[in-house]
C-alpha cells in the first residue's frame, strides 16, 4: 500500500516536473513565426518592399535583445505580388499553415479588404502600417497608419488657409480603387461643408500602373485657369507616381501656382525623380525623414546600417518614410503587448494592445487608443525640397486621436468607436446581470 502510494507520488512528481520543464522550454527556447505580407513585385513593390525590410530590421533588433517572452522571432516573408486575391491566399497560408502569431503587412486598402475576412475567420492578428480611408474597424487589425482626420483633412485645411495659398478650387486625383474613392468622398463632403461649390471640384481617376499623365496635367492646367486659386489632392498610389511627377515637372506646373498635395508619396517614391522642378509640392504624413530629434536620428542610423549590411537596393542613399515608421512602431507595440499579456494568444494580445505607448521616431509618444485600434499621431505637412526630402511647414501641436468613422460620411455618427466581437479578458469583476 505504502509502496503503491510512493509510486503514485513518484509518478505525479515526475509528471509535474516534466510538465514544468516543458512549459519552461516553451517559454525560453525555440522560435515563434511572424508573418510579413508585402508586395515585393508588381506596381506596389516601389512602396512596399522597404516595409518588408524595416519589419525584418525590427525583428532582428528584438531577437538581438533576446526575443519576445524568451522566444526568437522568425520572419515568414511572402510575396503577394500586388495581386489582391493572392493577398488573401497568402494570408490564409501564413495563419493556418505556417501558424504565424502576428502578421505585418498590406499597403493598398484593396489588399487589406481582401485579407480582412481571412484574419477574422481564422482569428489572426494584422498590423496595417499605411494611412487609409477609415470606414473600417476590425478586432483583428491594428491600424498604425493615419485615418483621414490625421492626414487628409488637416492637409486640405492647410491648403485652404492663408499660408497654404488659400485654395478655392480643388482637383481630387487618384488611382481607381477603394482608398482614393472613399477619401475623395470624405473630402468632397468636407469641402462642401466649407462652402466649396460643386463646380469647383474636379475628380479624376487613373488605373493602377497608369503611365501617361499628359492629358491629366493639361486638364489640371485648364481647370486652374478657369477661376480662383486651385490645389490638387493626389491619392495616386504605387509606381504611377513616378511618371506623374516627371510629367508635372516637365510641364512646368509650379507649386506656387497649383500646389499638389499627396497622401501616398514619400521619400521612397521620389527616389530617382528629378525633384528640382517639384520644389514646393506637398505631402501630408505623420513622419518625415527630415524631422529633427534624437529618436529619428537613431532610427535613421539603424536603418542606414541595416540597409548597408543587407546590401539592400538603394543602400547608398538610405531613405526612411512614414509607413516605415508605422511598421516599426507596430512591431514594437506588438512586442510590448505580448509581454504585457505574457502570451502570444491573439485575443490576449488584442486586449493588451489597448493603451500601449511607444516613443516613435517622429519624436511623438504615440499611443494605441484604448478602444478604436488606431494610433494617436501628430500630423506634419511637408514641402518637397530640391534634394527629394521634405521641409516641414506645418504640424499639429500634439498627437491627434483617429476618427476611423469620418463625421463627413452620413450615418457614421451612430457607429461605435470600437470593433465588435472583442473577447473581454480578465475584465475587472464585470457587474452581474
Amino acid at each position, binding site marked *: 500500500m505504502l509502496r503503491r502510494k510512493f509510486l503514485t507520488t513518484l509518478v505525479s512528481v515526475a509528471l509535474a516536473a516534466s510538465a514544468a520543464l516543458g512549459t519552461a522550454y516553451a517559454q525560453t527556447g525555440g522560435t515563434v513565426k511572424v508573418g510579413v505580407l508585402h508586395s515585393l*513585385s508588381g506596381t506596389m513593390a516601389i512602396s512596399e518592399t522597404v516595409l518588408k525590410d524595416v519589419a525584418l530590421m525590427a525583428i532582428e533588433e528584438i531577437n538581438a535583445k533576446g526575443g519576445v517572452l524568451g522566444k526568437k522571432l522568425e520572419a515568414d516573408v511572402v510575396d503577394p505580388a500586388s495581386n489582391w486575391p493572392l493577398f488573401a491566399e497568402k494570408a490564409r497560408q501564413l495563419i493556418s499553415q505556417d501558424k504565424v502569431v502576428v502578421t505585418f503587412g498590406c499597403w493598398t486598402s484593396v489588399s487589406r479588404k481582401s485579407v480582412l475576412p481571412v484574419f477574422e475567420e481564422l482569428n489572426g492578428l494584422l498590423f496595417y502600417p499605411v494611412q487609409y480611408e477609415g470606414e473600417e474597424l476590425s478586432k483583428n487589425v491594428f491600424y498604425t497608419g493615419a485615418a483621414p482626420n490625421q492626414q487628409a483633412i488637416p492637409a486640405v485645411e492647410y491648403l485652404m488657409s492663408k499660408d497654404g495659398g488659400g485654395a478655392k478650387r480643388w482637383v481630387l486625383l487618384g488611382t481607381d480603387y477603394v482608398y482614393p474613392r472613399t477619401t475623395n468622398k470624405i473630402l468632397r463632403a468636407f469641402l462642401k461643408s466649407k462652402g466649396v461649390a460643386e463646380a469647383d471640384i474636379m475628380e479624376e481617376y487613373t488605373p493602377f500602373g497608369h503611365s501617361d499623365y499628359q492629358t491629366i496635367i493639361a486638364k489640371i492646367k485648364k481647370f486652374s485657369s478657369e477661376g480662383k486659386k486651385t490645389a490638387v489632392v493626389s491619392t495616386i498610389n504605387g*509606381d504611377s507616381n513616378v511618371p506623374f511627377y*516627371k510629367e508635372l515637372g516637365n510641364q512646368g506646373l509650379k507649386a506656387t501656382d497649383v500646389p499638389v498635395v499627396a497622401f501616398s508619396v514619400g521619400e521612397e517614391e521620389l527616389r530617382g525623380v528629378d525633384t528640382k522642378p517639384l520644389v514646393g509640392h506637398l505631402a501630408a504624413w505623420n513622419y518625415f525623414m527630415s524631422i529633427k530629434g534624437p529618436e529619428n536620428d537613431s532610427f535613421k542610423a539603424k536603418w542606414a546600417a541595416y540597409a548597408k549590411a543587407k546590401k539592400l537596393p538603394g543602400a547608398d542613399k538610405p531613405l526612411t518614410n512614414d509607413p516605415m515608421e508605422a511598421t516599426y512602431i507596430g512591431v514594437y507595440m506588438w512586442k510590448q503587448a505580448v509581454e504585457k499579456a505574457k502570451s502570444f494568444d491573439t485575443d490576449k494580445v488584442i486586449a493588451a494592445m489597448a493603451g500601449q505607448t511607444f516613443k516613435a521616431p517622429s519624436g511623438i509618444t504615440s499611443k494605441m487608443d484604448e478602444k478604436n485600434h488606431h494610433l494617436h499621431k501628430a500630423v506634419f505637412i511637408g514641402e518637397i525640397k530640391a534634394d527629394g526630402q521634405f521641409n516641414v511647414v506645418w504640424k499639429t501641436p500634439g498627437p491627434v486621436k483617429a476618427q476611423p468613422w469620418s463625421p463627413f460620411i452620413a450615418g457614421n455618427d451612430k457607429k461605435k468607436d470600437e470593433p465588435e466581437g472583442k473577447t473581454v479578458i480578465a475584465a475587472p469583476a464585470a457587474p452581474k446581470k
Partner: protein
Amino acid sequence: MRALLQGLALLCVVLASPVHAVEPALAQRIAAGDNDEKVAVLAKIVAAADPKDIPFLKALAEGTVTVDGKPVEVTVNNRLRKEIDGAIAALKLVDPDHDTRLAAAKELSNGAEPSVLPAVRKALAVEKDAEIQGLLASIAASLGIRAGDKAERLAAIKTLGSSNSPTSRALLTELKDEPDLEIRAAAQRALKEVEGRLAWAERAGLLFAGISLGSILLLAALGLAITYGLMGVINMAHGELIMIGAYTTYLVQNLFRAHFPGAFDAYLLFAVPSAFLASMLVGMALERCVVRFLYGRPLETLLATWGISLMLIQTVRTIFGAQNVQVENPSWMSGGLEILSGVVLPYSRIVIIAFAVAVLAGIGLLLAKTRLGLFVRGVTQNRAMASCVGVPTARVDLWAFGLGSGLAGLAGCALSQIGNVGPDLGQSYIVDSFLVVVLGGVGQLAGTVLAALGLGIMNKLLETWAGAVIAKIVVLVFIILFIQKRPQGLFAMKGRSVES
C-alpha cells in the same frame, strides 16, 4: 569702457555680416516674425527697389537669413517662395541687362502678387524695349484690374483680352460677378477672345499628347509588326524583349555613372545600340532554340513564347530584384518647350517622337532597299517559291526575328525615359502592341503606323472627355467591334499570299 566694448562688438558684427542693403531690423523681422510679417517686410524691400537686396532674397529663398552676422534658419513655404520670387523678379526689372529684365518680366507675367505693382509701374515708365514693355503693361493690367478707377480698369481688361495667358483667363473669369455692368460686359468680351485663343492651344496640346502616345505604341509595336506581321510568329515574349531593352539602358546608365560621370548626358547614345543588340541577341537565341521548330503551329508558338516570357521575367527579377530600377533622364531631356502660354511640350516626349520617326524610316529603308529586306519580303509573300529560287529561308527567318526583337529593345530604351522600368514592364505593353498590329492589318507597316497614331489620339481625346479608366474600356470595345467587322485590319494584304 563698457560702451566702447559694446561698440566694438557691434562693429565686428557689422563687418562680419555680408554686405547687403537690407537693414538689420528688417532682417530681424523676417527671421522672427510670422508669415504675414515676412510678407509685409518683403513688400517694403520691393518698394525700396534696390537690386543690392537680391542676394539677401536669394539666401532667404534657400531658407537662411543673416541676422547680426549669424545665419538663422527660416521655414520658407509656397506662399513665401512666391512672394520672394516675385520680389527678386521685381528688383531685376531695373537691371541694366536686357535679357535679365525680359526673364524677370516673363516670370512676373505668370501671376504676380499685388505688392509688386508699384515696382512694375516704375519699371514701365523707364523701359525702352517693346517686348518687355508689352509684358509689363499686361502685368500692370492684371494687377490693376480690381483696383483703380473705371477707365483704368477698362484699359486693363482690354490689355488682358489681347494676351493669351491662362492667368488672364483666371483674372477675367473672376470679374463675372462685377457690380459695374459696363466692366462686366467688357470682361466677358475679353474673356471670350482669350478663351478662343486658349482653346486652340489646348487642342494643339491634346494633339501632341495623342501623337506622343501614338509614337510610344508605334515603337512598342514595330518589332511585333515584323515578327508577327511579316513572319506570322505569335511572340508573347515580345514585351519581355522590350523589358530587356529597358534594362540594358539601365545598365549602360549605371556604367556611365560609375565610370564616365562627366559624359552622363550622352549615355543614351550608347544605350540605343546596346539595347538593340541585347534584345536582338536574345531574340535570335529564342528563334534558334524554340521558335524555328514551331513555324506554322501558331498555338504551340503562343504557349512556348508565353512560357519563355515568364522565364525571362523571373530571370530579371532574380538578377535585378523585383523592384523597379531607376533610369534617370539625361538633363537635356527634362523640362519642356513652351509653344503657347500654358502648353508645354516636354522634351522627353519630343525626343521620343523624333526617335520613333527615325526608327520607322530606318526600318522602311531596310525593308525596301536592302537585300535582307528583299529576302524578308520574298519569304513573307511566298516561302516555298523564295526557297526554290535560292533564298536561304531559315537564315532569313533568323535575321528577321532578330530585327524585330532588336526593335523591341529600342522601344524599351525609349520607354525607360518616360515610364517605370521593372520586370513587369513588358506585360503592360504586349496587349497594346498586338492591338496595334492587328488593327493596322497584319503584314503592313503603314497600317501599324496609322493604327498606333489613331489609337494614341483616340485614347487621349477620350481621356479628356471621359477619364482614363473609361477611355481604356471604350478603346478596347472599339477594337473588338472593328475586328469583328473587318478581321483583316485597316489595310489588308493584297496579292496572292500563299498563307491566305
